[in-house]
């Protein structure tokens, strides 16, 4: 069973409090942008495949008072699953890795993902010592799991979503604009000094 990606993202957007949001390339960035038009309090890591969890970990280390939600495609996770080991080792209680699992390379017209039918991402995480690993297949599951998501502790949470089946617009934000808008927001919201 899988939910629509739009419904899953809308549920997270509705539930969001003050979490920092990092989005991986492709459908994740595009869907969040389409639903929020947010140019400041999220980082669309469109120019990278597979490194959003590490990027989010770098932020989470410095702002332990804020949860960091990393929405990472399952295609990105398949490209670099070893990041789960680094995440587990860092064990950042405010880092929440959300896998947007559409069982396809969504941003390239739902091209085939290796071993798509058999990949058990929560089991992978548990095998690496990530205790808090869960999979949500309906919006009701996801909403019901928000308490687990918010509880302190690193975790991996899989959103089983339907493949989008269509292209949606990318955030119209150039790289330096993304850096400065998000960075200035981080300075204001989290009290960190980035640009001086």
């Amino acid at each position: 069973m899988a939910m629509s990606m739009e419904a899953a993202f809308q549920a997270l957007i509705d539930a969001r409090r003050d979490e920092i949001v990092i989005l991986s390339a492709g459908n994740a960035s595009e869907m969040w942008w389409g639903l929020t038009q947010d140019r400041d309090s999220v980082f669309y890591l469109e120019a990278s495949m597979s490194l959003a969890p590490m990027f989010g970990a770098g932020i989470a280390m410095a702002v332990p008072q804020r949860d960091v939600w990393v929405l990472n495609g399952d295609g990105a996770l398949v490209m670099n699953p070893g990041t789960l080991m680094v995440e587990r080792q860092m064990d950042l209680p405010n880092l929440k890795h959300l896998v947007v699992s559409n069982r396809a390379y969504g941003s390239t017209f739902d091209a085939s993902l290796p071993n798509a039918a058999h990949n058990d991402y929560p089991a992978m995480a548990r095998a690496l010592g990530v205790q808090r690993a869960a999979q949500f297949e309906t919006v009701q599951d996801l909403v019901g799991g928000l308490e687990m998501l918010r509880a302190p502790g690193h975790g991996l949470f899989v959103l089983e979503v339907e493949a989008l089946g269509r292209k949606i617009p990318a955030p119209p934000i150039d790289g330096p604009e993304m850096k400065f808008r998000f960075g200035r927001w981080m300075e204001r919201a989290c009290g960190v000094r980035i640009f001086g």
Partner: protein
Amino acid sequence: MSPDLSPEIVEEVARAGVTLVASLPDGWIADLIGRFDADARFRHVPVNREESAIGLCSGAFMAGTSALALMGASGFLTCVYALTKINYTYQIPLPILITLRGDVGDKAKYHVSNGLYLRPIIAAMAMPFVEVQSRTDLPAIGRAIRHSRTIARPVVIGLPRHVLKGAD
């Protein structure tokens, strides 16, 4: 045999304000990594592959943390995509300490390719590159770290074998 300059390299990095070091080893930097790991001024994160260091350090910058990536030459060559996509697209600074594997003095035949292609690839990416060939070059490490912040791009600092392991 000339002394290993690893302790002084660590001091230069600390003086430049770096507090996060992400590394993946190469035989020449095992001792250097151990020194960063044991030094309370740094948080050291061993990573699964070199490009994960690029992602981690780049994210750290976006939260105000000064970071350094430490890796071998071969690992650096696997990072072309991550560096050009993340650090060039978003203009995120990142100092990268690498070994100069394949240079004169490296007897490992499997590193010949690094000797042939490392510098041309760094040049092709228009990435500032400094070499530390002796103790007198050590202040270049701090200058390179600060320069990376100034230009909002990665800067590569190359370390040859004799600086890390002592001369034969």
